[in-house]
């Protein structure tokens, strides 16, 4: 069950848009970070069930943050939310262990799809243990 969600994006606007698409009847605990480095720090502290991660960010970019997060917890469920929609970007984040990539700007449908996939992934991980 998804309880804690971490959103890592340098844009206040982007974070608001994601939160706005997430909100429904389910009450998630949402945490936010404004760059990759802060995001990794918060990830280590709270161990979220799901992380939404931007790629183009100052301090530490999303590729580096994803790498760091997966090194900390190989089962971490990370959804990339980015404007960088090149095929190679998709290949790279998949190789680094991201669950999926969503193109910006987010929609309720794309975020709910991510929540469903993340939920299934968490169940698979739980069953495999």
């Amino acid at each position, binding site marked *: 069950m998804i309880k804690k969600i971490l959103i890592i994006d340098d844009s206040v606007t982007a974070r608001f848009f994601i939160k706005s698409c997430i909100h429904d009847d389910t009450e998630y605990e949402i945490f936010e970070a404004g760059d990759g480095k802060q995001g990794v720090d918060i990830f280590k502290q709270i161990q979220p069930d799901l992380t939404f991660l931007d790629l*183009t960010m100052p301090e530490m970019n999303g590729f580096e943050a994803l790498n760091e997060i997966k090194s900390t917890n190989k089962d971490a469920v990370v959804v990339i939310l980015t404007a*960088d929609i*090149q095929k190679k970007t998709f290949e790279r984040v998949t190789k680094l262990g991201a669950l999926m990539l969503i193109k910006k700007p987010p929609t309720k449908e794309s975020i709910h799809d991510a929540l469903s996939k993340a939920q299934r992934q968490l169940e698979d991980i739980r069953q495999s243990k």
Partner: protein
Amino acid sequence: MNDSNDVILDDLEIDTFKEIMNIAFGSAAASLSDIINVYVVLSVPNVKIMKSAEIADYIKSEAKACGYNNLVEQSFIGNYRGVALSIFPCGSERELLSIFNPDKESYIESDPLNELEMEILKEVGNILIGSCVGKMVELLKESVTFSPPRFIRGDILQNISLGDAFDSDHWAIIMKTVFHFEEKNISSYLFLINSHEVTASLKKALRNFWKEYE
């Protein structure tokens, strides 16, 4: 003389505009990457508000420009009237051209560009500008008309022409990003310069963009 209050966007408006530009630059990178099969590393977009008279100096310093830059300039007209510049600074154009003509022996920077090479740069600039501005106005639910791209080789300070909308005491909104072509170690700079006249429309469009998520 217009007041700076006419153009100043608040922090949230700037952040939203940056996010829109981020999406637009991403779209431009994907278009280019599809066409020339080179991975484009995006940088965090930058938005600045300054007097028109300061624009050329700003661009020259930000684009690491030297004496003989190649640039593609295109105007766009509509509620987002402005000028877009795609700049290939100081010899990077030769590296870029080698993507299209890998068999050609190494270029010498001082060699003049032939017509085909200038056309290639013009096309690359046109793709970056068209995808980027196109996506920006799509997100803001507007439309613009483009002038044909103009290829210029020379000193930026002498060659940037910002047209009638940019009297020296007018304010302008400048967006900058860098496209870095990974395997080739080339950087190209894209600047979008909006006249102060767009501010009212821009503020309204940004509010509408937010409303979709409220």
